């Protein structure tokens, strides 16, 4: 059973403000692993749970 992780709403809002803001652009594309890692790191989402590798 996965325990998961709990984050504050403030931290999730910080994530939201930089995560999906290009969805309405014609040139939207899925983020690379490196781009996702950089975003997670920027808002303090670190550790094994947030690791993509």
């Amino acid at each position, binding site marked *: 059973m*996965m325990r*998961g*992780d*709990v*984050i*504050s*709403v*403030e931290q*999730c*809002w910080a*994530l*939201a*403000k930089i*995560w*999906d*803001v290009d*969805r*309405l*652009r*014609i*040139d*939207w594309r*899925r983020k690379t692993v490196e781009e*996702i890692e950089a975003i*997670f790191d920027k808002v303090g989402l670190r550790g*094994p*749970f*947030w*690791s*993509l*590798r």
Partner: protein
Amino acid sequence: MNSHLQQETETLDRAVRLTIYRHLVDTGEAPAAADIAKVLNISQLIAEKSYLRLDTARAIVLAPSTMNIWMAHPFSAVPTPYRVQTGKRPYWANCAWDALNIPALLGVDAQTVAHCPDCGGVLTMTIRGGQLLSAEGVIHFAVPPRRFWENIGFT
């Protein structure tokens, strides 16, 4: 696929994807492939093939064994515990995170009141003027990001 045809396909898929999102933003509902076909003046079959490619590319999520859009992140095409009230219109979000992604994407004020499906606790989030005004509760991620797409419905 030769490079010219591949480029045409990618251009079509980008247009279909954006048209899907514009429809969702304007109506709160996901369009059928036939709706997209009319807007872009293409056949329904071509629109459906594009839907399948976008699903494979994880740009949208089709409901299993159908051509119906289930999710176009951060929007859900079906009711969820996360109803996002905005000044523009209400939307369904796929999860608490997406309930914040919607006002971030649209640049609108929003409020979401949801009950955590795990613990039953109330989660209230209010966004106004690009600021988080009130926030009660926490956001639980049950699945690590590297495994989000193993079962995106559960995620």
